[in-house]
């Protein structure tokens, strides 16, 4: 007597769960499809920018003479003729961040030389040049010197999307040469937005990885680029002697923050204006923005 109602309850629950589980599986499969599609369609715009950093230590860190080191960062093609966007911080070997932390007591100046861009499976690279940089926005533009007749897959940040808080986003990057520079996607959610010092999307996890990665909505629309934002010297509330206090001022700044696509497009247009190459590079239309 007492088992019957229970059996009936279990049966009803099971019936209810079957379609829910079926639905979840289908949703997960659809998500996976979307993910795969995003990687396959967008990762061809990812490149590796190799350079030799000429580093000169300054202040109390000087004395060891100039140094040189090889540097490799992920960049994203933003124009059909070989215009590439990457993280200024990474391209300059984090020298700007170090200098800001040292507050003038010491630091380093770094100049990237012998730039090469590795597209697809290429391991040799083609010669490139550093066109301009925007250290405020943490962006740097590199251009392939002689693209010949080639056109490249690129991301058009002028056609970006504005995500909502809580929305899923996907960042793309290339691993290092040990992993054959394979493209990988990293998923996260928008955890917040800032208005100061500018509009930025804040991912929920700080582990989205390397700076300079393009970030997309799952459907492939560009959201922006991961950057770092550091306060100006007068905005840091600790003297250069107070290293620990200064470091806490940079705590939020060092996590990857997403610079909106519209800002990326606008900055790219400005960069091209600065070097006066908009008309002959064919990059202006690709970057959108007046």
């Amino acid at each position, binding site marked *: 007597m007492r088992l019957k109602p229970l059996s009936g309850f279990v049966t009803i629950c099971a019936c209810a769960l079957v379609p829910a589980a079926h639905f979840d599986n289908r949703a997960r499969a659809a998500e996976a499809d979307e993910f795969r599609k995003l990687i396959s369609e967008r990762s061809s715009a990812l490149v590796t920018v190799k350079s030799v950093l000429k580093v000169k230590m300054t202040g109390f860190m000087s004395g060891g*003479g100039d*140094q*040189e*080191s*090889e540097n490799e960062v992920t960049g994203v093609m933003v124009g059909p003729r070989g215009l590439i966007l990457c993280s200024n911080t990474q391209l300059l070997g984090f020298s700007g961040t170090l200098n800001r932390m040292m507050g003038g007591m010491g630091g380093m100046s770094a*100049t990237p030389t012998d730039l090469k861009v590795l597209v697809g499976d290429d391991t040799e690279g083609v010669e490139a040049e550093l066109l301009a940089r*925007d250290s*405020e926005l943490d962006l740097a533009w590199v251009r392939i010197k002689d693209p010949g007749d080639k056109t490249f897959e690129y991301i058009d940040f002028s056609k970006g999307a504005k995500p909502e808080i809580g929305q899923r986003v996907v960042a793309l990057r290339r691993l290092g040469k040990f992993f054959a520079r394979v493209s990988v996607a990293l998923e996260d959610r928008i955890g917040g937005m800032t208005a100061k010092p500018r509009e930025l999307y804040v991912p929920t996890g700080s582990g989205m990885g390397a700076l300079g990665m393009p970030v997309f909505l799952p459907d492939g629309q560009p959201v922006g680029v991961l950057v770092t934002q550091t306060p100006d010297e007068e905005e840091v509330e600790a003297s250069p002697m107070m290293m620990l206090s200064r470091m806490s001022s940079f705590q939020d700044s060092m996590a990857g923050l997403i610079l909106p696509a519209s800002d990326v497009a606008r900055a790219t247009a400005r960069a091209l204006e*600065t070097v006066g190459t908009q008309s002959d590079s064919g990059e202006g239309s690709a970057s959108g923005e007046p």
Partner: protein
Amino acid sequence: MSSGVRHESRLSVRRAASAIVFLAAAAGTAAYAQEERELWPANVEKADQLRRDMREMVALARDRVFPALVNIKVITVRYFGGKEHKGQAVGSGTIISPEGYILTNFHVARNGKKFKCTLADKQEISAELVGEDPLTDLAVLKLDLAELKDSQMRLPVARFGDSNELVIGDTVMAMGSPWALSRSVTLGIVSNTERVLTASEDDAGEMYFDEDQRTGIFNRWIQHDAAINPGNSGGPLVNLKGEFIGVNTRGTFFGGDMGFAIPSNVASAVAAALIEHGEVPRSWLGLDLKPIKKSGLKAGVLVNSIVKDGPAARAGLQAGDVILEIDGDPVTVWFPEEVPPLLKRLADRPIGSAVTLSCRRGDEGREARIVTEKLEKDKGDEASFRAWGLVAVDITEKMARERRLDGTKGVLIDSIRGGNPAQLAEPALAGEDIIKSIDGKPIDNLAALVKFYDELMESEEFPEYLLVEFDRQGKNHITLLKPKPDKDVDPPREVAKAWVGVAVQPVVNKLAVKMGQPEALGFRITRVYPGTVAACTDLEVGDIITELNGDRMKPRGMQDAGMFHRQVRRLYVDDDATITVLRRGAPQTVTLKLERTKMTPEEARRDHNRDFEMVVREVTFFDRDENRWDDSVNGVIVDHVERAGWAQLGGLYPGDLVQRIGEFEVSGLDGYRAAMESMTEAEPERVVFVVLRGIRTHFQYVEPDWSPATSDKPSESNDKKE
């Protein structure tokens, strides 16, 4: 009043008591002296006489050698980390002949590229290296007598004494330039005449300058306590006869004034050989010796090891043999102190002569006739190949033996520099690799590598890759090295943005209240930059910016200090902007056209001059503002001078504004380049730089080395340029 009197009275009593005590002490001393004089009249007289004699002898000895003492400044080029490194060193030396030969230490002259000697009369004269002998740590320089102010001047010369006459307790003087302080004399006594500096646990141990270079093999040291310090190296140790009886070479920081000098009998022979041959020819037998003190043997000297295929090995000698006689003379070496004289005796034999050794092997006696060979250098010449980022060394027989190589063919890589072709090659080249060939051309020695490099760097076109064959730990590898020109790159440019030519500070809530203008939250103008659009408006220092294009500017604290300029940078260059300011409490509106951001010093174009070893950069807007330079002040700013480079030696400093070079006015980077090109063509002995440093002009005299940067001789081609 009364207390004051009492106080005065107490003081008087104290003074009186003190005077009594002092008088008593003085009387006591006088009484003691008189007593001494009465009791020991002869001794006191003797002491007085000795003091007078000593003073005279010291003065005499000093005056016989001191004029021949020189201070030596050395510009060095050392090789490590895949590149050459310049530096400065200071040591001492002694003039030993009227022709201007100076005896000093090898470690003073080592890696010397340029020598300047300051004589007793303060003349600074150039010198060149005649020869060096690392095994005794001695070197000879020669003064350029043409530089003497008086061409008829007779140089003061020190006379060698017989160091074998020295005994422990003899008074000696050390002369030199301790810590680069010129011309010092210290006095001491000889503490030991046959000091050896082998390790206590191995009495067959050897001293090394570095991995490949031995020293101190053929001499014992005169240990003394006349204070010597860094800078004394190479200076004379002098006896009371005013004779040069040793070359001060080593000291100890924590050993209580222990100095070590190379005996003059060794030094004079080495100096003579260096002057005659440029080297010290020595015989080599290919064996190591060990004292018998722990061996249980009663006589002889132990053969500690034998060099494979060396003269001793070919004569049938084996490690473990005990040498009892050399050319019929019995020999026994009980202690380490007896090893250097024996090694010297063997090395002093004519090269190619025969030495007969009577030996015992076990219970058997045997004779070995060894034909000596020339003792070759321990370490080979070095050169840096800047565009490849590597330092390479010639391989000597000794280096080959120590590394168990088949021979001396090839060039040993000393070190490589990160980020350069040698390190970027796949697989990368590394220290201790031995380059055997490049693009199929054998690289048998350093000269071959220098020749290959020079031809390549002078060629019109670089090959894309060089195929480099090298040995690493007995394995034969190949790699591709991609040569590249050594070029400089200007710093990357910042994206141009909108800018207003004012400096501001945030006015936060408490500050605004204190100013009596609680509504005056904003940014107070602290400077209106002259020559800007802002300077053409009526903006003035003290104005508080409250709005930009209608947007309220309200800083909440110092964390918002950059808000105003950040907002401006979001606008566009050449657009009009409306700025609302509070001036003495009243709002004002200013409309102005936005300018481009100004170039910062970090972005300024630079020029790296490798002859003068300096980097200069353009003057920027902010340099002018910071230094209050108006448009009439022009030039280029010294950004960097290389350590011990000609610019640094000429007294140029980072931050100097170069305004004139020779007869050329320098108005900017292009003018600077033109002036420097003219100097390079003219190759003057001295280039005058007129610089502005602070508020004063300075005339700096730079004397660059115009000698060719490359040469066929590896030893002279150590600073490769292209």
